[in-house]
């Protein structure tokens, strides 16, 4: 299989977009192309574009996004496909780009992940996201992703002794990291006592989906991120010879039951475990080799559970590691240095690409104040549905 790596990255400021959806998408794309030195028009070398987005058609009334991007950027006749895999659309788009190059069909692929969620009202957005649930046994009841995260959290609390404060500890950490990330949606330092003190917790941190509170889940964000993939054996010939090459060492993806109630062990995230295992095996590494990780913390419970399922900590001990600061920027296993979905934001289709952009910054040594010293190998986990479709990626500069 051909070696595939990243030579360009782009990332818009997450939050409420001030520009139309397609401008946001193209902004991220051009940042990645400029970072790599890729040209448009007659000098274009991009064979293929994949755009990962969950709701551009439903929310923004723009379908066929990838076809529109290729034309707008003047990189015709590059192949173009739009990829929809729920909140894992971004990492799925990267996986397809990786496969396209590894197979020999393409040499250079542009990946963009994007979502314009703030184009609709909060409850329309909540409904849109909930459409990924099972239509007959979940969605029709009015159940939402926060509902399933709440029920999952209660199972973990009952089984492992996890407390509400543990979720807040993860939240505080990720908000602190986001303050060091110019692209993050929220730049507010959060004080643990302010969101956990029983005297005023219901005012500062109200319950949204019991036992989950406002600071236990991500905001609603617009945003786009992009990466430019190239075959290592064509890197010089395509004009990227002087660019830092961050290798995609391994990718894995796995699925689980669509109906959450039908999981064999409802407190497990089986697809996370299987996809990470696949990515580790392809890369020839294990969890002990990961220097920095971006884990899909749409809800803070997921960062804790995923940190266990990918093998960083024993099952049921992820919250203890968070309490001990092991996942902090200066900890033994830094997680979500970008601020995570919690504070960097979670524009669904953009998230999987954004996670990889953060890892590239870390592995290039370009993460500024949030740089993990000596980071050489990173892991990203992008989580679709309520864990029924997960994509994991291992990047390395070794």
């Amino acid at each position, binding site marked *: 299989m051909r070696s595939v790596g990243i030579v360009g990255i782009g990332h818009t400021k997450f939050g409420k977009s001030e520009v139309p959806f397609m401008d946001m998408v193209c902004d991220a794309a051009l940042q990645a192309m400029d970072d790599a030195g890729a040209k448009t028009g007659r000098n274009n070398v991009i064979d293929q574009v994949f755009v990962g987005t969950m709701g551009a058609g439903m929310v923004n009334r723009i379908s066929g996004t990838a076809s529109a991007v290729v034309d707008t950027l003047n990189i015709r006749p590059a192949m173009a496909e739009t990829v929809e895999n729920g909140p894992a659309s971004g990492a799925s788009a990267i996986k397809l780009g990786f496969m396209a190059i590894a197979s020999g069909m393409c040499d250079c692929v542009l990946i963009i992940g994007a979502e314009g969620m703030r184009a609709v*009202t*909060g*409850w*329309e957005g*909540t*409904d849109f996201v*909930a459409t990924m649930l*099972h239509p*007959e*046994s*979940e969605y*029709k*009841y*009015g*159940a*939402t992703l*926060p*509902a399933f995260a*709440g*029920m*999952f959290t*209660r*199972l973990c609390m*009952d089984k492992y002794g996890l407390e509400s404060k543990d979720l807040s500890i993860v939240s505080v950490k990720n908000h602190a990291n986001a303050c060091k990330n110019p692209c993050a949606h929220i730049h507010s330092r959060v004080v643990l006592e302010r969101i956990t003190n029983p005297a005023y917790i219901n005012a500062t941190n*109200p*319950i*949204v*989906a*019991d*036992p*989950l509170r406002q600071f236990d889940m991500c905001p609603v964000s617009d945003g786009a991120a992009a990466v430019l993939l190239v075959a290592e054996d064509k890197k010089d010939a395509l004009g990227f010879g002087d660019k830092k090459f961050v290798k995609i060492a391994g990718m894995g993806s796995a699925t689980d039951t669509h*109906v*959450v*109630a*039908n999981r064999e062990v*409802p407190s497990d995230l089986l697809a996370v475990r299987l996809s990470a295992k696949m990515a580790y095996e392809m890369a020839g590494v294990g969890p002990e080799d990961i220097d920095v990780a971006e884990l899909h913390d749409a809800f803070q419970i997921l960062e804790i559970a995923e940190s266990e399922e990918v093998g960083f900590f024993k099952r049921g001990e992820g919250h203890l590691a968070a309490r001990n600061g092991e996942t902090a920027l200066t900890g033994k296993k830094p997680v979500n240095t970008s601020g995570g979905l919690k504070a960097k934001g979670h524009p669904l289709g953009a998230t999987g690409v954004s996670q990889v952009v953060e890892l590239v910054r870390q592995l290039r040594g370009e993460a500024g104040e949030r740089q993990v010293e000596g980071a050489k190998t990173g892991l990203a986990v992008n989580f679709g549905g309520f864990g029924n479709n997960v994509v994991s990626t291992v990047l390395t500069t070794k």
Partner: protein
Amino acid sequence: MEMEQMYTYKCTKCGKLHHPRYIVCQNPDCDGREFEKIPLEGKCRLLTWTRVYNLPEGYMCPWLNFGIVEFENGVRATGQIGFDEGIESGMELIATVGIVKEKTILYKETVVAPQHGFIFQKA
């Protein structure tokens, strides 16, 4: 009345019970595609629950309670919980069937088509 009854779906080849309806039997050692409908009702145990305050479009109430239950035959299901006080994981409940959504929103159309589903009540 058909809409007001919830069912488990028994594979006619291997006997595995399913909820909700599937096209192919979920037993990894079976390829059955025929199912017998059996009413799913009665006692069940609450595995986990939540109370949600940010409901999606179409729900004009301040909150809803949701739970995942396990029936005595081992089948699990998600549904609404029809009471507010004293909800606890592990408690015994009775599965009833009622209207769980007053109307379904379709793009640029509103179709008044009540949805029936599980509403779990105190045993």
